[in-house]
């Protein structure tokens, strides 16, 4: 099989990461402003308006597009920062905005009808009826699908909706209630959906106890890693808890998504774009992952089988999974 190559949508948390993604062959780069309007509102991360302008220019010179994620939900009574983010993304020449809130989608479609609108994974649109609603009401051109679907389910959605779909291909995994997860909010009072932070760094504490690494989130001890055991992110969903006298991962194990060998199946399922997760990761991660996926996406488009790429050293907990795409559980 050969055909159009999947679009490679790559993360950038800093201008240096944007340049790394573009240089490694990204088709498009997604990023956010340095505030709570995006779901990676981490200290020292993200773009000022000037940096976005420079980033768009750099990407444009290399045939690459820039998407701006404005994918948190505006504070009640204070939509100003979110509206300004949409206005500035449009004014600076972003190719598209990635939105989740219907009020913000309405604002963008009425104020900037020429600006492409993508539906964020934070909106949790996982069935044709929901996706058609966002298309019909707000002119959404692309939907980022939640990581809850098998490849067969994605194919069925693609055959029933009038929009492009984008799926996660590599990187960190959320528990499968994206946009609706309250674990971080429960533990720290701050959530990815409202504040753009999951398990905010100021609430994280690490303790070394005789070689064992203990991670804490606020007042919760959430994991104990034995000496030499690969570690994971300090999020409650990846916590290892004691239940029925046995310590185990109750929600999900620390592992990274990697579907590089499934690219032919995803192409066959009608997917338009692949998303690499990791705006919070360094430019070395971005360069390495984008290079591997660029090579594989091009090979698959020429009808070749995907070759294995050694991305294991970059993965959480040192492990990879194909997640829900190959669902082996009920």
């Amino acid at each position, binding site marked *: 099989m050969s055909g159009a190559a999947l679009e490679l949508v790559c993360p950038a948390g800093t201008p240096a990461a944007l340049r790394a993604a573009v240089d490694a062959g990204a088709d498009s780069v997604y990023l956010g402003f340095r505030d709570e309007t995006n779901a990676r509102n981490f200290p020292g991360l993200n773009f000022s308006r000037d940096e976005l302008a420079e980033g768009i220019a750099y990407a444009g010179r290399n045939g690459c597009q820039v998407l701006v994620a404005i994918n948190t939900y505006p504070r009640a009574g204070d939509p100003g920062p979110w509206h300004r983010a949409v206005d500035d993304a449009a004014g600076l020449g972003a190719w598209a905005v990635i939105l989740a809130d219907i009020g913000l989608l309405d604002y963008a479609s009425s104020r900037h009808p020429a600006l492409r609108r993508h539906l964020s994974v934070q909106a949790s649109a996982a069935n044709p009826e929901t996706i058609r609603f966002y298309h019909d009401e707000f002119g959404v051109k692309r939907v980022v699908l939640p990581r809850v679907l098998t490849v067969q389910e994605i194919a069925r959605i693609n055959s029933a909706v009038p929009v492009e779909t984008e799926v996660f291909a590599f990187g960190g995994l959320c528990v499968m209630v994206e946009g609706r997860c309250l674990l971080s909010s429960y533990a720290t009072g701050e959530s990815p959906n409202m504040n753009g932070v999951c398990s905010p760094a100021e609430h994280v504490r690490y303790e070394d106890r005789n070689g064992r690494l203990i991670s804490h989130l606020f007042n919760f001890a959430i994991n104990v890693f034995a000496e030499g055991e690969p570690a994971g992110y300090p999020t409650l969903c990846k916590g290892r808890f004691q239940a029925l006298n046995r310590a185990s991962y109750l929600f999900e194990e620390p592992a990274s998504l990697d579907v590089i060998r499934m690219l032919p199946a995803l192409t066959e399922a009608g997917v338009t774009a692949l998303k690499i997760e990791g705006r919070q990761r360094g430019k070395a991660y971005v360069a*390495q992952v984008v290079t591997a996926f660029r090579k594989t996406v091009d090979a698959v488009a020429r009808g070749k089988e995907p070759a294995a790429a050694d991305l294991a050293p970059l993965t959480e907990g040192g492990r990879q999974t194909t997640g829900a795409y190959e669902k082996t559980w009920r």
Partner: protein
Amino acid sequence: MLRAGRQAPTLSPLLLVGLALRPAPRSALQAAASFAMAAMLRRHSNVFERLEGLASPVFLIDPIDLPISLLLEAGLPAPRLTALRDGDAVPAPPAAAIRGPLRALIELLEGRTDGDALFFSRTLTVEGDMAAVVALRNAVDGADIDLAEDLLRPLGPLGGPARRLAAAAGALYRRADQDLEILRAALLAPVQRRCDTQDVRLDDLDETLSNAPKRRRGQQV
């Protein structure tokens, strides 16, 4: 003896360099640290600007294979880098400590490796204010630092010979690293063989236990 919070370093050329550094006068170490700080401030002031929102931008940078650590007081307008030897009084309480092999710390500084990956593999350990650590990591990763170039540029006309010297030292380091890896494998070989034997015995015991008939509680033996 290991300093508190430090993991044991592996055998590397840097460990040997560190042992050789022990008798170096403190003033020489501090002069080197101040020179590096001046170069960093001149070439990458944006790193310090990105940290301006932190309440206390003070970090203990602790290369586990050297007998010194560095206290980075990153607050503008006059950031400072202080070289500390074991037992030295720390001039300002650090908000966070970052520990790891010097090579990993330099690769992280230059953005040649990913900080999360170093954390996942337990190469890097962090403690204290994680917001400060994340901010520093992101500021540094965004800065396009090239340590050799940043340090050699102020030398002006001496920069050319210094670059050649640095390249030769780099080649020597890589060769020494390979040789020490062979030495390390040779030294550990007897221990490794014993561990492998124990592994096999444990596997055998596991298999024996799993094949043994299950007895009900209270059943007579």
